């Protein structure tokens, strides 16, 4: 997938849908400001699964250090969008 085909909003929707499905939390309770650990009770395994989903979906690679820096939904979206140069 290229930056031209992708907007930041697409990535945000993908992240929210993944978290909603995997953590069984209503989509409406997940926004950009949502903190993964504190607000969603996500643990390290949940975060790895999110990272792998993003890697598979967008064909990117996320290092251990980069993964550890993802604390909110916005962090995850910004990371992917930045890596792909997605349009705002």
């Amino acid at each position, binding site marked *: 997938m290229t930056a031209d085909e992708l907007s930041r909003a697409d990535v945000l929707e993908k992240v929210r849908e993944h978290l909603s*499905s*995997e*953590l*069984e939390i209503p989509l409406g309770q997940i926004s950009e400001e949502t903190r993964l650990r504190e607000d969603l*009770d996500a643990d390290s*395994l949940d975060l*790895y*699964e999110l990272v792998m989903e993003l890697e598979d979906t967008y064909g990117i690679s996320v290092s*251990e250090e980069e993964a550890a820096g993802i604390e909110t939904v916005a962090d995850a979206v910004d990371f992917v969008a930045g890596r792909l140069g997605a349009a705002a």
Partner: protein
Amino acid sequence: MPVTVALDGRGAERGARAVIDGARAAAANGLRLRVFGDRELLAEIRELDGAELIPAAEEITNADEPVAAVRSRPEASVVQAAADVAEGRSEALVSAGSTGATMTAALFALRRMQGVRRPALALQLPVPGGGRPLLLLDVGANTEARAVDLVQFAYLGSAFSSAVLGVERPRVALLSVGEEQKKGSADVVEANARLADAGGIEFIGNLEGRDLMRREADVVVTDGFTGNVVLKTIEGTAKAVADAVRAAARSGARAAVGGTLLRPALGSLRRQLDPDSTGGAILLGLRGVAVVGHGSSGPDGIANAVRLAARAVEERAVDRTAELLERSGMTRGSMR
């Protein structure tokens, strides 16, 4: 249609010979195998009916950090074998290599079952006197477990015991320091209260460690740290007692006569308690089947691990577990 099992051919403590002979025994039962490992050492696999060798140049060992190794080494045998299951060429994963690497590769490739917070490693423990083994979980997947995890483990273990081991209404107990409902850590007490009010499984309350081998429960639930300590304690104690019996039987002429007379019975007991007889531990709570063989598995252990994995596929263990969790309202979202 015979079940196809992806077998990691690297990392077995007893080497390629144990893998080849184990694969041969499993293939003789009509099972199909895709074996991932060293092209030269495992060359004999190619001669087996129903078995295929897929060269895998890399190995993940106990010395590697599992998460980093699995993520960075896609050519490793266990990673390839797990991917083979995820991509549908095989139906179950078996490895007698590094437990951490196998669990991680399985978890990443097969993913957790919808609604399961933490998968658990379940092991059948042979019980003296023969008959049905005891299912103990978790024996090491999670060093810590919350109350909701222990509750889910109870359902995972019950579903597996019923589907794969054929126990009609498995009696499920929580391992604790007393039988009373309020005995134990905060998580155990909370899990007991939740399970006592829940339906869908036969929860019988707490069980103390000294009663594990008394056939009072079919499934015993604990956190992975405690479960692993219990398992190793049982193994160590059994060996120490066996060594002491052997030493006593050699302590004098009269003892030697008694020892000789007892030898057939003791041999039979040793075979009953042999960890190879149950085929290793199964990782429950995934969207696929993954079995971790005992580290020192011989050919029988590897063959039995493959048979256990195949039985879990044939008996639809994954689907039946998901159905039980859903029906009983024990998915992650329902318990929040």
